């Protein structure tokens, strides 16, 4: 690939790194969170950011299978969020 493409993938790499730093900010709420629903909100936020990071890294490393992994990750994190929500609401 030509140098201009590598400059673009550098931009995607920087975006992925900043998103990971933002996800660590959400992890503070995961540790501190006074109640369990707060922690579930933090986990949901981290899952969303992880999907974005997977798609960006798939472009950076030219491994486009990462995008398929991101789709499956989004659906599985939805299932786990629903399960934890059922548990917190006392419906299991």
């Amino acid at each position, binding site marked *: 690939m030509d140098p201009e493409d590598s400059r673009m993938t550098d931009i995607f790499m920087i975006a992925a790194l900043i998103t990971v730093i933002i996800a660590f900010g959400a992890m503070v709420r995961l540790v501190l969170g006074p109640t369990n629903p707060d922690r579930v909100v*933090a986990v*949901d936020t981290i899952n969303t950011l992880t999907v974005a990071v997977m798609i960006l890294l798939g472009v950076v490393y030219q491994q486009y299978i990462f995008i*398929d992994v991101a*789709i499956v990750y989004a659906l599985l994190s939805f299932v786990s969020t629903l399960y934890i*929500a059922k548990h917190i609401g006392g419906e299991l």
Partner: protein
Amino acid sequence: MIADTFILILLVIGLLFNALGVIGLLRFPDVYTRLHASTKATTFGSIFLCLGVVVFAISQYLGTSDSQYLMVITHTIIAVFALAITNAAGSHAIARAAHRSGQKPDPAVVDKLTEAGL
């Protein structure tokens, strides 16, 4: 190139909204306002990050006409739809569970959901 500038603008918008969502998650007082900030802002920001990837793949496809970039475009759009639908439904489930577990909004005056007996 105009595509590079466009991708940069989309990525900056996405990162800005992701950062605002996490700042709201850290700063707001109770679980409902945290849910409001983090879910909507991070969904919007992630959609814009994925749009940056889509614009990059479109510009690569127009340059090289390699068919793997069409796969990247379609799969990224599928991922965006999965993200948007599951985040909306999941945040609704979390809010309902938080209300059922006895959490009240921070300065709660009236609670119509409990009055309705749901």
